[in-house]
């Protein structure tokens, strides 16, 4: 109070005025302190939020990035014509049904002649994935010329070896607590020193369906299921949602019934998604007989779930179009529908699309309603259409997270990374579409 601010040091006109300014100055410090506290809390909240997001992403990436690599073991395989193709007919049927598992085992025994005894040999066979026979079969069918020769083949390593090579299994643990026993460790070390172990990019993760064996499991099936489901969801919910918004906002009479409908739409947006799953089960599957576990019924349920979001966003977007545009169009004799489609809708489109993409992003991450309609089934085949049984990425993640094998941990994280990638892409698309269609009036 004794040190007035520089602004107040001008010649004081009257004592009363001076007192006012002193009171103001005295309170300034408190006001600024309050503002500084608020700013600090805001900045701290943002920092904390970013920290959590950073930890989350760091954790997922740290756990998941190894899934994009896959361990392979080089094994010399003698493609014995006598066992694979006894008649020498090269008949594809015969070649397809030959004993490739035996071939893998025989090759391993040749590589490690010192291993004897059933238990020891079983450990030996576990070095190689259960998918290896399939690998050899494909090879023989594609290149029958390998028959009768010995080739060095890179076979997919078993899940435990894969984990060991990626450093996920601690060698220092006592043998009893370790998944990989000492004998196997020696074998792996021998392979390593011979240069027979290699990590390669894991293409199988993107091209395979799911599997009981972590090293063979991929997200292709879930991705295809997600694609079919979301495409159909968009196809169903976008036109219906925009149409409903247009009708309710611009054409429907304003009365008690439309008020009731509006309240209900707003409430539907907050209904737990599993309720939509129950509805899908009861109505679409049990009453209409839509095949269950399919992208078709999934899309029907997700479309119902997304509709309120799209309708609410579209109505807000339509409402924000200035009425002068409607008057202008009506004033030159456009019919109400022409007014809407030629002028109002194009102006509202950025907002509508933002709403639609938010709705779709929610549908992309949804798993609960899909559990109710059977999209949680273990489906190895990659779906080829909307009526094939399928699962979606979030459900796949849930299933893998439930699996006890160590190999599924990294795959779960990797699948989450893919899902997050899609989310980012969709949000980018939303931003770009907005920019592209944004017009001023």
């Amino acid at each position, binding site marked *: 109070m004794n040190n007035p601010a520089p602004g107040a040091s001008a010649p004081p006109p009257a004592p009363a005025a001076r007192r006012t300014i002193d009171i103001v100055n005295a309170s300034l410090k408190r006001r600024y302190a309050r503002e500084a506290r608020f700013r600090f809390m805001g900045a701290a909240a943002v920092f904390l939020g970013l920290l959590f997001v950073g930890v989350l992403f760091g954790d997922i990436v740290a756990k998941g990035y190894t899934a994009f690599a896959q361990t392979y073991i080089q094994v010399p395989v003698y493609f014995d014509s006598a066992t694979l193709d006894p008649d020498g007919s090269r008949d594809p049927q015969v070649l397809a049904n030959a004993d490739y598992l035996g071939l893998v085992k025989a090759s391993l025994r040749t590589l490690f002649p010192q291993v004897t005894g059933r238990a020891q040999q079983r450990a030996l066979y576990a070095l190689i994935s259960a998918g290896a026979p399939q690998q050899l079969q494909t090879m023989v069918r594609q290149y029958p010329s390998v028959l009768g020769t010995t080739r060095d083949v890179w076979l997919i390593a078993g899940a435990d070896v894969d984990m060991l090579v990626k450093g996920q299994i601690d060698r220092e643990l006592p043998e009893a607590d370790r998944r990989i026993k000492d004998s196997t460790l020696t074998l792996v070390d021998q392979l390593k020193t011979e240069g027979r172990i290699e990590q390669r990019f894991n293409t199988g993760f993107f091209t395979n369906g799911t599997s009981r064996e972590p090293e063979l499991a991929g997200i292709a099936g879930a991705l295809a299921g997600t694609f079919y489901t979301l495409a159909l969801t968009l196809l169903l919910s976008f036109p219906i949602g925009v149409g409903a918004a247009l009708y309710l906002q611009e054409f429907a009479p*304003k009365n008690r019934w439309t008020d009731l409908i509006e309240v209900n739409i707003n409430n539907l947006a907050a209904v737990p998604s599993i309720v939509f799953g129950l509805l899908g089960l009861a109505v679409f599957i049990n009453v209409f007989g839509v095949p269950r576990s399919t992208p078709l019924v999934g899309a029907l349920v997700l479309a119902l779930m997304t509709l309120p979001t799209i309708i609410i966003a579209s109505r807000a977007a339509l409402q924000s179009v*200035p009425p*002068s*545009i*409607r*008057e*202008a*169009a*009506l*004033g*030159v*004799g*456009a*019919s109400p529908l*022409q007014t809407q489609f*030629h*002028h109002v809708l194009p*102006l509202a489109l950025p907002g509508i699309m933002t709403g639609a993409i938010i709705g779709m992003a929610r549908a992309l991450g949804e798993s609960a309603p899909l559990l109710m309609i059977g999209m949680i089934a273990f489906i190895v085949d990659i779906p080829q259409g909307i009526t094939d049984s399928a699962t979606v990425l979030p459900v796949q993640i849930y299933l893998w997270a439930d699996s006890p094998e160590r190999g599924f941990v990294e795959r779960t994280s990797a699948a989450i990374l893919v899902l997050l990638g899609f989310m980012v892409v969709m949000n980018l698309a939303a931003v770009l579409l907005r920019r592209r269609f944004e*017009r*001023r*009036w």
Partner: protein
Amino acid sequence: MNALASEIVRDTSAVSAADLAKGGHFSGTIGDITTPDPRMVCREVNVWYGDKHAIKDVSLDIGNHQVVAMIGPSGCGKSTFLRCLNRMNDTIDGCRVRGSITLDGREIYDKGLDPVPLRAQVGMVFQKPNPFPKSIFENVAYGARIHGLTNSKAELDALVETSLRKAGLWNEVKDRLDQPGTGLSGGQQQRLCIARTIAVSPEVILMDEPCSALDPIATAIIEELIDELREHYSIAIVTHSMQQAARVSQRTAYFHLGDLVEVGETTQVFTNPRHKLTEDYITGRFG
């Protein structure tokens, strides 16, 4: 019609400001509401917004090749009346219109009458310039397109040029017809809106305070334009500027709280108002 007109033209001295102030129902309009060659004839028009009685028993003719100016303080119902003439009030919820409005002898509030072609016949220019966020060409061509007025691109081009010429905008925009109409200046935008209105060859043009958002120079240009447009169209204009009413109109109607108080030749209304309220308003005592 003459019999009706003589009934409605009442003796003037009987109604005074005191009657109006009492809030009693006022249905006497001073002056001749008729015109020798009427285009639109309005008789005892009443408008309600919900419970609010916005227009009370207004009767007025809109003459051929004539500019009728409607003046009055804010909220007096002049814009509401104007918007009855092309049924723009239909778009407002809770708005009811009673009475008779005819265009060339045809009742425009008939059940069977479609407001869409009516609005092509009775065009409207709004208070705030509201070009579509499209190119200048598309703005003018839009009406012709939706009504199918032209059969070829050449015809459409010609129509756009004629309309822009009539609106006095052609020379300013002929090199940038593909640019957005929203990029023009306020006065140019308003002339673009006038061009858009006359491109569908209306018979009557309604203007709702067309210059209120414009500077004096743009206003002068539009006023000149209104005078030229009178040759081809009948015009009803709502304005807050009494100078503007005096400059552009032949007849003037003074509205007060939903009543049409006085109608007459513009020169007569401004030089020798017969009603106390009119006099107060034009001399600037209120409003």
